[in-house]
């Protein structure tokens, strides 16, 4: 037990350290927001001083109705995300001056000082050429020089590093007891690296030099591809597919599972909820089941569903059915329980039968609750289908990104995540629109 606490404490400290490390960046972002807000306010005041009702309020802090989402802030927010993304990936969409310092590319030199066993010292120059990934430049030719240390040539790809076996052409060798004591005049040993301005030189355990060109502030493609490369991937994957499956196929499979799973869940869950809301016996029967299953995250069922139904469509649909079922049942139940008894009494004293009350009072009265539940259920289903595809699937957008991540196709992973977000948002907007159109009385009772 004590060991667990110690381990968790250690994790917590590591976490806190990385949070503290991230603070300057967060502060920079918040600073940008505040700056934009300040500039916006200044410009707006100069342009046109509005005198609408809200702007005349003296109490705005704490007045919920005075706080309206600022459209300009939303636009700036989205633009800023793309600018930051582009700046730190050297995107060609951005003008050069907005780019964060990139990795060093080009030619440069540093010198090293060798001390032979007999105490003789000599300097040699290393001609370094750093090139971008995918390029195969011609290596520069080292000048012939006298002395026991000869000049070297080093060709390195940006973001990579390279060992320099400096004694390959020298008259003294490591075997002969020679060793490097300084780089660019600064002493070097196994624990002390030397910064040479365009990179870092370190001495390895075996006595060779390891050169690592400076990376700058930009992210390597493999960590974070530039926006345009994600866009290009979107085009290419939607046209040619990825691993022989087109994007449309991946997306249709995911959406198909969600829609069928949700439809089945609603088809069973809504009548179940009505039964629970209308009958003591059904309430008593299903309450323990529903109340137990509700807090079980559908993701926790994935292993069981895979064991029982395999990784085919059946398993996915069972999972999504279960994800939607409890949410819809609870929504329908509370929709029925939420009917104002005076409405039911009124309907009875207007001569309605039980069947008519169900049809004309209870069902319409529960529709707003059912719509809310449907929105939640669709969101949960969408999240669950992606997770289930991450675990095991043959097709689907989740399968696509997990396959891409194995080949470090980060651009496809990012594209998939963005598509998942857009589709999830689209589903929610669609449900909201349907709700507004189909149950306009929601919240008006």
């Amino acid at each position: 037990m004590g060991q667990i606490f110690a381990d968790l404490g250690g994790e917590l400290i590591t976490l806190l350290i990385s949070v503290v490390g991230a603070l300057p960046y967060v502060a920079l972002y918040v600073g940008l927001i505040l700056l934009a807000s300040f500039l916006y306010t200044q410009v707006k005041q100069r342009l046109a001083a509005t005198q609408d009702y809200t702007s005349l309020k003296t109490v705005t802090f704490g007045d919920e109705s005075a706080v309206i989402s600022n459209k300009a802030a939303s636009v700036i927010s989205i633009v800023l995300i793309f600018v930051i993304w582009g700046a730190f990936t050297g995107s060609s969409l951005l003008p050069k001056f907005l780019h964060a310092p990139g990795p060093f590319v080009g030619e440069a030199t540093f010198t090293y000082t060798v001390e032979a066993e007999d105490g003789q010292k000599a300097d040699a120059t290393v001609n370094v050429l750093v090139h971008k990934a995918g390029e195969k430049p011609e290596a520069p030719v080292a000048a012939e020089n006298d002395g026991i240390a000869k000049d070297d040539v080093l060709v390195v790809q940006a973001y990579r590093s390279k060992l320099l076996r400096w004694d390959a052409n020298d008259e003294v060798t490591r075997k002969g007891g020679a060793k490097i004591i300084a780089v660019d005049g600064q002493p070097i040993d196994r624990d002390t690296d030397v910064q040479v301005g365009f990179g870092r030189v370190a001495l390895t355990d075996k006595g060779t030099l390891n050169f690592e060109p400076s990376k700058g502030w930009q992210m390597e493609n493999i960590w974070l591809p530039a926006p345009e490369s994600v866009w290009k991937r979107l085009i290419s994957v939607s046209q040619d597919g990825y691993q022989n499956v087109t994007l449309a196929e991946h997306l249709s499979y995911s959406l198909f599972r969600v829609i069928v799973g949700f439809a089945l869940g609603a088809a069973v869950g809504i009548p179940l909820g009505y039964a629970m809301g209308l009958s003591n016996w059904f309430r008593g029967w299903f309450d323990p089941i529903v109340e137990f299953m509700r807090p079980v995250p559908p993701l926790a069922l994935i292993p069981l569903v895979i064991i029982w139904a395999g990784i085919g469509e059946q398993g996915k649909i069972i999972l999504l059915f279960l994800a939607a079922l409890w949410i819809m049942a609870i929504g329908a139940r509370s929709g029925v329980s939420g009917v104002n008894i005076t409405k039911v009494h009124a309907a009875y004293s207007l001569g309605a039968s039980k069947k008519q009350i169900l049809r004309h009072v209870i069902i319409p009265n529960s529709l707003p609750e059912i719509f809310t539940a449907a929105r939640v259920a669709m969101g949960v289903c969408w999240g669950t289908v992606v997770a289930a595809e991450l675990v095991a699937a043959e097709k689907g957008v989740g399968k696509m990104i997990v396959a891409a991540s194995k080949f470090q196709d980060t651009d496809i992973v990012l594209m998939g995540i963005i598509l998942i977000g857009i589709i999830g948002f689209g589903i929610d907007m669609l449900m909201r629109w349907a709700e507004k159109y189909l149950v306009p009385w929601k919240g008006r009772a």
Partner: protein
Amino acid sequence: MTKPAPLDVGFVFNDFPMRTGGKTAVRRGGDAQRQIGTMSVTSEKDTSDRGLSIENLSMRFDLPNGSHVQALKDVSLDLKQGELLSVLGPSGCGKTTLLNIVAGFLAPTEGRIVLNGHQVFGPDAERGMVFQQGALFEWMSVRDNVRFGPDMKGMPKSESAEIVDHLLDVVGLQDFKEKMVYELSGGMQQRVALARCLANDPDVILMDEPLGALDALTREKMQSLVLKLWKETGKTIILITHSVEEALLLGERLLVMAPRPGRIHKEYRLPFADMGVGADLREVKKHPDYAPTREEILNMIWNMEEEIMGRTEENA
């Protein structure tokens, strides 16, 4: 079914211009006025056994903690067809329980309700109810709300359309027929509730503080409307209210109930409801009997409330 007869002169409820000066209202025979909402069948019946009688009603129910509440004890009352009864009393005197039993939503532990010669066992279209608020169906338009009763009976739309048009004229909401009920103000909603109740042509209309949630001005206008409807339709009406003024103005008979156990404390027969039909209710309030009666009833209720408070303090 006969077509609904045209309304009497001056009945159209044109957004409350009803102050028709010192026009004296004379109560005429019941049947001739029973015209709203094709109320033809009832008017041809023999009226000798028509009326509502509440016979030795007691209501006593157990609480989860083992004790019990005597909500009503031995309440008896006879109402003739067309009588207007208002019920007053401090909180907890069983007014609403009484109304719920008459409506058929609750079964009494003793006694029975008899309407037009048959015993009442549950809710029925013959006893319409108007609630304080929240009883309209907000998923329906004004028209569909008013049409609800006839629809449930399976009356053809063409037939019910006439009733709806007619009643919406009566309550002054003809222009709002297509609106959804949540788009209406509180006073308009209560007018819809009244029209919906009348569309079903009930024998008895039960009103549970129907004007309680309205502002003072709207309330006064609605009181005039209730009086008009009562006179024109000849319905038996039981009206529960917290307002002594409303009980005086709208009660041909007025029942003051006492709490613990709920029982009839005193009954009045009052002239004000008849005087108020088609007249200015503020004029009615100037009647020499009005203020003394109001004071008497107010004192009565105050004393009951004090007694309850005193009893609670002793227990504490």
